[in-house]
């Protein structure tokens, strides 16, 4: 079945590929668009921008989200910014350089053609967002301002204070509202997709649960777009929102869509450290802080000891006794190395005993030098709201003492396999934004998630979906009273009945926490063969425990958050195991995936291009059966593959 992995990358020079593909795509005339229905699941940057743009084109769109309003999707929490190759700073930025940085940052595990297209449309995203009334930061002359992010040497990040994701999402949500008002989009908030319906091998609809009434509802369409984000919450503790989940992706996977590179998860270096067992959520501090903040731990273990006992403060440790370990190890990029590199370096220092808080799992992010250099006002303008947020949470002021930070799960580069058109291995099923795997390879650069979500939603899917739908306008709407819908609904009903019937003694969260511990310890920042095999076995054990002992209180036909969580946890088991399996197969170190067995003498990640320069696409084979691995080889025609080096 490997022939399903046809990437559909157009031939010809890199910079002509997207233009070529667009010219080949068949159009759908306006009167025919009216006859075509599209389901969009998820209303983050990808889903909201896609639904709005498709509605504008004249398609009938149904858009679903699990929260009470599309505006609450987790894109809202992105802080730092969005990249675009505008070269407004005259610092020699270009589409090619954004493309190059993204491929290199992804450790040469992303498709050249997809990434180039992303860089190509990036500039239009900024134009679009400004036209929507997004108040990006401005220079005094009235021009747009930029800042830098990790893994690059130019300033190409556009931002709106520390709330860029919020502003971009409110822009996409406003466009969505415009279309809802116009009648082209119908919105279904508080609805959760629980299965994909396939008719004659093509995606034709979904089963969703109305989260207020608990009823299962059926929706049919000519195509389905999944825009439900990543699966970082497999780890229980992550920077993802509490309700973010991987369930829609798992349902597609179980219905035949291949799942690509599941082991590529991003661990973000600058999160507020874990404070205790009662925590359910980790908070990110924006990467933009690394523009001016310097990361360090003490050089002397006795200073560490005193810090932990609160005998001294960080500010009392003299300059010569501080180890600015990123500046020491990576002089060319310093504190702005990519996230995977910064995270591993923090873990290395903490494992060596230099962690600066009671748990030994924290390093300093220090602004004292920046405050001296730039002055209080400038620093406040750049990071004021982040400082405030940090102080609210920790009750410590970054103006006086350095922040304490530690890595945490933040983003998943892996996801549903898609071709160049963003279509999955199931015809009529598309995946966009974080839900797909396509653009970030083994590691995503900062401020690129927002760029990808909006690129896919505003500029790619509205074009590429036409190629499929141009063959479908003569097809009548699929009835939801056919066998395929009946069976899908019956299967969902059976899942719900099973969960509600167990009535054991353990809570969903207590089991999810255990899954999180297995994942963090064995499928986290450092992975090895033994640990990964143990993880697979332990997840299976835990799943058994779940089905025997979980207690899901209440009933189906009510607002029941415990039932929602239990259904999602079932799918996290599936993803967790798949991540471990993929990590076990990929015995190289690459991007966010670090195999202990594959490192240089200096402890840097060692890639194995001879054996692993491919996309690992997994095919579901049934309950309790091992999934089958398919390989899509990655070819680099336009870029020289090198060892990633941020030292010189």
């Amino acid at each position, binding site marked *: 079945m490997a022939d399903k992995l046809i990437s559909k990358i157009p031939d010809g020079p890199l910079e002509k590929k997207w233009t070529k593909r667009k010219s080949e795509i068949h159009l759908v005339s306006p009167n025919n668009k009216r006859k075509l229905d599209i389901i969009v699941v998820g209303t983050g940057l990808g889903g909201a921008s896609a639904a709005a743009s498709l509605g504008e084109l004249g398609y009938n769109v149904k858009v679903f989200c699990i929260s009470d309003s599309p505006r609450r999707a*987790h894109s809202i929490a992105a802080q730092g910014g969005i990249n675009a190759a505008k070269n407004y700073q005259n610092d020699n930025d270009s589409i090619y350089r954004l493309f190059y940085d993204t491929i290199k940052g992804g450790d040469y595990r992303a498709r050249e053609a997809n990434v180039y297209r992303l860089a190509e449309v990036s500039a239009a995203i900024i134009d679009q967002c400004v036209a929507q009334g997004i108040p990006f930061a401005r220079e005094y*002359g009235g021009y747009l301002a930029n800042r830098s992010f990790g893994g690059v040497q130019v300033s190409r990040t556009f931002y709106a204070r520390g709330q860029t994701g919020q502003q971009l999402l409110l822009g996409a949500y406003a466009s969505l509202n415009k279309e809802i*008002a116009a009648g082209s989009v119908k919105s279904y908030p508080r609805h959760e997709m629980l299965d994909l319906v396939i008719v004659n091998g093509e995606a034709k609809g979904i089963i969703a649960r109305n989260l207020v009434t608990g009823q299962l509802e059926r929706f049919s369409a000519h195509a389905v777009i999944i825009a439900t984000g990543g699966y970082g919450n497999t780890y229980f503790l992550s920077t993802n929102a509490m309700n973010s989940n991987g369930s829609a992706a798992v349902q597609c996977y179980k219905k035949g869509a291949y799942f690509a590179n599941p082991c590529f998860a991003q661990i973000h270096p600058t999160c507020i450290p874990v404070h205790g067992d009662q925590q359910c959520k980790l908070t990110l501090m924006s990467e933009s802080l690394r523009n001016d903040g310097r990361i360090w731990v003490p050089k002397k273990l006795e200073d560490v000891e005193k810090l932990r006992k609160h005998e001294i403060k960080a500010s009392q440790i003299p300059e010569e006794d501080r180890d600015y370990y990123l500046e020491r190890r990576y002089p060319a990029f310093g504190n702005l190395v990519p996230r995977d590199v910064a995270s591993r370096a923090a873990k290395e220092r903490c494992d060596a005993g230099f962690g600066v808080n009671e748990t030994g799992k924290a390093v300093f992010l220090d602004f004292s030098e920046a405050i001296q250099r730039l002055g209080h006002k400038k620093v406040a303008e750049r990071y004021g709201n982040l400082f405030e947020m940090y102080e609210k949470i920790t009750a410590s002021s970054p103006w006086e003492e350095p922040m304490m930070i530690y890595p945490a799960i933040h983003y998943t580069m892996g996801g549903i396999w898609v071709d160049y058109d963003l279509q999955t291995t199931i015809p009529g099923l598309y995946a966009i934004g974080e839900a797909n795997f396509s653009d970030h390879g083994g590691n995503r650069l900062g401020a690129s998630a927002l760029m990808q979500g909006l690129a896919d939603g505003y500029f790619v899917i509205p074009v590429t979906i036409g190629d499929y739908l141009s063959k479908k306008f003569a097809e009548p709407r699929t009835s939801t009273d056919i066998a395929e819908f009946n069976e899908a609904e019956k299967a969902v009903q059976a899942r719900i009945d099973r969960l509600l019937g167990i009535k054991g003694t353990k809570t969903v969260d207590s089991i999810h926490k255990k899954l999180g511990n297995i994942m963090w310890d064995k499928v986290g920042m450092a992975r090895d063969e033994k640990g990964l095999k143990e993880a697979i076995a332990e997840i299976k054990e835990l799943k058994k425990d779940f089905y025997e002992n979980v207690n899901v209180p209440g009933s189906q036909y009510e607002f029941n*958050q415990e039932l929602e969580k239990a259904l999602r946890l079932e799918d996290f088991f599936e993803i967790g195991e798949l991540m471990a399996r993929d990590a076990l197969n990929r015995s190289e170190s690459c991007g966010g995936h670090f195999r202990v067995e594959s490192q240089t003498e200096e402890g840097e990640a060692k890639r194995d291009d001879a054996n692993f320069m491919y996309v690992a696409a997994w095919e579901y084979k049934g309950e309790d059966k091992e999934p089958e691995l398919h390989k899509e080889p990655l070819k680099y025609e336009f870029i020289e593959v090198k060892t990633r080096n941020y030292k010189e």
Partner: protein
Amino acid sequence: MEFNLKIWRQKNAKAKGHFETYHIEGIEEDASFLEMLDILNEQLIREGCDPVAVERGCKSSGPVSFDHDCREGICGACSLYIDGRAHGPDDHVTTCQLFMRHFKDGATITVEPFRSAAFPVIKDLVVDRSAFDKILQAGGFISVRTGAAQDANNILISHDQAEESMDAAACVGCGACVATCKNGSAMLFVAARVSSLALLPQGRPEAHRRAKAMVAKMDELGFGNCTNTRACELECPKGITVDHIARLNREFLKAKFSD
């Protein structure tokens, strides 16, 4: 720390609500208010309570439903009225950014949903705020088509103008302003959107139309009128000020005159 929690319980929109009181212990000072509720729910589930069990005489209605998501103060989902204040006793925070160190050990804390005629209760502490979406659908956007925009630097916007627009755009749509207002007015919410867009050249062409349409929708949906008590700005988690209401009024009046 330990607390007595007096929490509003309501099975669904039609049921009559009531308070139930629970005791909780072993809470860390650094735990957030919602983490404390998570722990309470774990406790209630372990005690084997659920809405069915309560009919058999169980002492609680089981886990408490509440809206929440990002837990970092930006999604606007959380909507708790704690000890008589929207989002509780700390200033300019959402409920998820309220920490237990702000309460006295041993205190009794009263927790209710946001109360407003326009926000009917769905269950326990969960309310229906879809009226906000409807107000924004009435005009809270700029009518630009995807792909139609010119280069982003072609229209200059002064630094201060952009910053002021951003002050208003920071609204998270939580509804604290409505819950706090004695009239149940959504003026601050509407003003934030109208003002943010009216301050930008891109938003000017539709500014009057937008103000009129959004105010009309707000009235239609049963929100009350503004009587300038300024309670909303005190409870706004993002510190949005009533200056924006003044700007909304200007836009609205100009629109009326030009009719």
